């Protein structure tokens, strides 16, 4: 009886530890959630979580209209069928996983200005600053942009 009780306690403790670790991991990973302004100040990106992966979509553009007055579309996309998709609402960060140490990896970033998709690693420099590094092949061939967290003001 004592042995069974000991095994049960051990099993519950292990489950408890694993759950706590997963919870902490989740909590740290979720620090990236929110709305961020890109370095140039031309766009804001909302980062959300679906399952275990993080994605980001454009929710605001400094210049949302094209020169002809119509909403900007993804005209540089290499996939012709996507060239009429509005930039606002377009998902540009895909497939990020939290890998620990305030870092999200294994995702891609899409640059609508040239229609290219890059490998990407994101680091949380502080709670309000993201270092977003897009690169090709190895991280050395890349460029880092600094994004700042923004808080949506409540409407009256």
């Amino acid at each position, binding site marked *: 009886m004592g042995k069974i009780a000991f095994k049960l306690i051990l099993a519950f403790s292990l489950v408890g530890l694993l759950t706590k670790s997963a919870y902490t991991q989740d909590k740290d990973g979720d620090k990236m959630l929110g709305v961020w302004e890109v370095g140039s100040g031309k766009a804001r990106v909302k980062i959300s979580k679906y399952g275990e992966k993080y994605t980001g979509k454009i929710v*605001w553009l400094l210049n949302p209209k094209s020169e002809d007055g119509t909403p900007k579309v993804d005209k540089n996309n290499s996939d012709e069928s996507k060239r009429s998709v509005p930039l606002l*609402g377009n998902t540009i960060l895909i497939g990020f996983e939290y890998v620990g140490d305030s870092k999200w990896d294994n995702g891609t970033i899409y640059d609508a200005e040239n229609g290219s998709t890059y490998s990407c690693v994101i680091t949380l420099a502080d709670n*309000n600053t993201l*270092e977003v590094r897009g690169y090709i092949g190895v991280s*050395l061939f890349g460029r880092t942009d600094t994004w700042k967290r923004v808080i949506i003001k409540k409407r009256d």
Partner: protein
Amino acid sequence: MNFKKISLFVLLTIFCFRPTKLMAQEEEDYSQYEDVEVTGKPTKNYCTSKIVGISPSKLISVGYDFQSANTLSAGSYANFGSQETEIQYNSGLRLMANVPVISNVKWLVSVGANYAETKYKFSPETVPINPLVKTLSANGLTTMGINTTVFKPLNEKTFILAQTSLDWNGDYGLLEIPNSDQLKVSAALLIGRKKHERLMIGYGITRTYRGGQRLYVPVLLYNYTFVNRKWGIECLLPARGAIRYTVNSRNMLFAGFELEGNSYRLNNMMEDSPSLPPYKALELRRSEIRTRLTYEFSVYKFLWLSVQTGYRINYKFNMDDGEFYGRKQPFISENKLGNPFYMMVSLNLVSP
């Protein structure tokens, strides 16, 4: 009754499997993201090193240069006579790597290396007598170098651009180790303004060998993309200038020119042909303008092919004794090169 049940089942199924996320996205009110407050320390914005629509910069480039038949009239010097020759073709590898080692909003620092050779294939009837013909036939001309580029934005509009390169130029082959006396140092320093996302202008000074010998000349950077985004200008005068036509973001056409040149230490020639009076440092002053049409396109993702064709106009191929600034003495010998058509093909890994 059965019909009602089936209808209810179908309606329930549609309700359960409705695309909730998509609907949520479609219905999202994006106006809520207009009025925001930036958190944390206030950030200073900096301009980037690129304008919208500019051609992608090359990180790694492997190319081959081919120049069609032309002539070389090698002048006499010391006790050597002149020689008229026919060159069947010139060719050579062009390798370049440019790696950004620091790349963030405040600094962009890249280091690079380059290798360029020009081999001379003379006609079979040519018997190399003149030492210059001899060394060009045996060794050709080679440039090997390293360089650093620093782009430092000061604020949203103003930037500083600095570039330094160390090049070893001479009549040596790929497997020979260049000497320190073949070293030439070039540099440029510019201050510029990124007036808006389609225009970048910079002014400065450069120490360059593109004119065949050491020169200190003003330099102008002008990168501009027209409102229609189809046309643009990419200039770094006097080194190069081009008009750009963007077919789409993965296909670009250019019409322009490049001023190419260097001063080459002819150590192999001096060893092979000791002469009287004993020259201590023979330098070949080469300078030419390449007018050209270029088509660059993405082969696969970031791998771009560049095909360039044009006309090479050589205007300096003379010899001096010593490396100096300014013209202190007449050339040791004056040589004349013909002007051939040329073609250059390169495969490039381009920057994000």
